[in-house]
């Protein structure tokens, strides 16, 4: 591990000021990641992941196109390309490529893409995010979770089954019951996918209210996934 000075690392925090997109090297072209005229990498600046790829904040994405763009930008920005360049360009290349990788990783996965957009829109998702759940689990704290109304009864029954499993082990009958419950939950997860896609369409069409729907789907989804995980653990 090494320590680096943010200034030296080329991570310029611009405090909201927008940088003039002029190539530092040839001074000529409007340039975002690298100069269109001379190809030199430009300084990294904080940017949102959609903007990094030059995309509008829309959720329905052409996956293959995103991958093509990721590869094309990698070829131009990657530190391998700058291993003989100046220390300054090496630092920018490192920063830019880490932004590129972070952006691609976030956008290519439909769920993390949705969560990211909601965060950008100022909606805190921490309550049901994967990390929050993991942390609460590891710390042995029961995380406050609001049980979606439609799942109340099912969740209650499942908890009884899981209690039973904890006390007396999983016999053949219980195993079958757990499996059946899991299949039901999985089917529901699948329909949620469709709900999410419907919300995306609304958002992309300009309906800003669609965020509430997405939050709702993500919440229920995360609750369901936790149930599935509990079943998997009991069955193991």
């Amino acid at each position, binding site marked *: 591990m*090494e*320590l*680096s*000075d943010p200034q030296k690392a080329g*991570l310029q925090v611009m405090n909201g000021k927008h940088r003039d997109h002029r190539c530092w090297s040839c001074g000529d072209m409007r340039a975002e990641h690298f100069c269109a005229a001379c190809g030199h990498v430009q300084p990294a600046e904080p940017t949102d992941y959609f903007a990094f790829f030059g995309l509008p904040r829309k959720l329905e994405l052409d996956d293959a196109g995103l991958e093509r763009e990721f590869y094309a930008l990698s070829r131009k920005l990657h530190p*391998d390309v700058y291993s003989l360049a100046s220390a300054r360009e090496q630092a920018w290349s490192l920063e830019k490529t880490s932004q590129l990788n*972070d952006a691609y*990783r976030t956008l290519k996965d439909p769920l993390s893409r949705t969560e990211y957009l909601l965060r950008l829109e100022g909606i805190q998702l921490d309550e049901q995010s994967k990390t929050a759940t993991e942390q609460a689990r590891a710390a042995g704290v029961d995380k406050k979770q609001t049980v979606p109304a439609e799942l109340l009864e099912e969740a209650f029954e499942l908890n009884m089954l899981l209690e039973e499993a904890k006390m007396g082990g999983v016999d053949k009958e219980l195993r079958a019951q757990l499996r059946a419950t899991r299949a039901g939950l999985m089917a529901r997860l699948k329909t949620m996918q469709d709900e999410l896609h419907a919300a995306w369409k609304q958002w992309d069409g300009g309906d800003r209210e669609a965020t509430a729907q997405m939050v709702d789907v993500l919440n229920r989804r995360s609750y369901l996934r936790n149930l599935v995980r509990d079943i998997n653990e009991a069955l193991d």
Partner: protein
Amino acid sequence: MADDRVVGIDLGTTNSLVAYMGTGPTLAHPDEPGKGVFIIPGEDGSNLVPSVVALDHDNHMLVGNAAREVLLTQPERAVYSVKRLMGRGVDDVQEELKLFPFRLAEDLAPGEVLRIQLGERSYTPPEISAQILRQLKRNAERFFGAAVKQAVITVPAYFNDAQRQATKDAGRIAGLEVLRLVNEPTAASLAYGLDRKQNGTIAVYDFGGGTFDISILKLQDGIFEVIATNGDTHLGGDDIDNLLIAVAVADIAGDLGLDARQHPDLVQRLRRAVIEAKIALSSRPAAELEVELPDGRLYQRTITREMFEQMIEPIVERTLEPCRQALKDAELTVAQVDEVVLVGGSTRIPLVRRRVEELFGREPHSELNPDEVVALGAAVQAKILAGGSAETKDMLLLDVTPLSLGIEALGGVTAKIIHRNSTIPASATEHFTTGVEGQISVAIHVLQGEREMAKDCRSLARFDLKGIPPMPAGLPRIEVRFLIDANGILHVSAREQRSGKESEIQVQPSYGLTDEQVENMILDSFDNAERDLAERQLIEARNEAETILTALAKGRHNPAWTMLNFSEQRKVDELESRLRLALGGTDYNPIRRWIDELNQATMHLAELMMDAAVGSALRGKNMDSTDVGEGPAAPHPIGKAEFS
């Protein structure tokens, strides 16, 4: 070009290699100009340099085959498999110490970087590795006849931050600028990909001397994108050897009543014997173990392949779970893997091949020598970094971090901030605040690993964010940025946002050398190099002095001597005695000086002798006995006189 050759180095647990990708015809490909990726052989002509470092009786460092001989006769003066100790603390290596004869320095303080006792000094693992690297550097420099200063070095894909940093330190200590650390399986895929430009998914199964890696890559138009990687940095052919040694030790104790563990040299002879048997068993149904005991008795045993496979089955089995995990992480089924490539010497074992074939449902590739393919791939990456060539033009490696990066959160829990298998460079920004009014520092514990509790993960560093302006609790907002670079090494930077004040961070790596320590080690090696150089120059000067003195003795009996005048003779006499005096010392400088002066003073004598020789040749005499050179063009006639 001669000065910026970038070589590729495979710094292995058992063997190390150095390779180069040239642009012109090469030894390996004399008929294919521009296609040359080749291993640079050592002085003894072999491609593999055993990763063994030893001290000879003059306390000189030996590396490679020479060191391996010392290991057999004086195991306490040799170190092998040091890669297992790279980037690890005393607590980590307790298991290793039971199996390997590492002698740790006795004065190790807790939390200090390990040191291994070798002769009268102790060395850190990066220093031992640096000896191996320096040997490879020398091999390359001899091959090119020019300095080599930059290298790409491979590491196991599953190496953590500390192990990578230790490898980079070793490079620096050896006087090499490490342009990149490349993961071994990924390097292998580059070597394979050079010849076959095709798209698809490949799995690289890399089972070496001390480490196991599995990497799954997607190849698309020259982009080598690692999707997932997994492995075990302490699982390799070494473990198979140890198993066989344990069997032999038990035999010897039971049948012959001797505790072999009390005889380190016997253990090393057993080690060599079981390695030979292991290798033989890859091509034959049975192999003989035959080792002489210290009391002259002979230990003999036949190992059949069936017995061997039964014994090593659990070890081979341990490689399969990481494969399944990597597939799971890549969200791929075995059917979606187009090709499987075998890398590492241990993949020569038929059982290993069978298990891999069963798991992936297809016959694995092993066209390229599994011992050499990683070094060849490192050379390809070196070429890419050095500006590339026509064949590497479209090639780009996108690798991942093998382990999740986390920080310790409340309750000793790991909060993951960069997940494993994220493409690198990768970064994460975290915000921290204070819990007490007026608090001016915040402690951060950085971890690497997959476990939920911090104590079960690898501790990378603890550091304090200092110099936070005193504010009510919870008000400061400290932004800490974690960035994993293309080498898989973590960089940390921090700032307090509320006051705009740059926070001062003190990082105490949990294991690892400080910059200052590395600097000192570099100086150390320069001192040694200077001492080595001085010694060599002394030897050379002495040899040259002997040559000129012998020639002079002959010259005195030559009729030409009498043709010199008295003062010329006196001058030569005086310089001769001065040179003989200087020869008694250990400084080469005065020896050189009197050689030069004597050379000057005998110039006339040499000319006279030459004239006489030419004269007699003209008279048709046989020149053989009086030949003093190639004629008038001979650079130093009196020096040449010894040919007579």
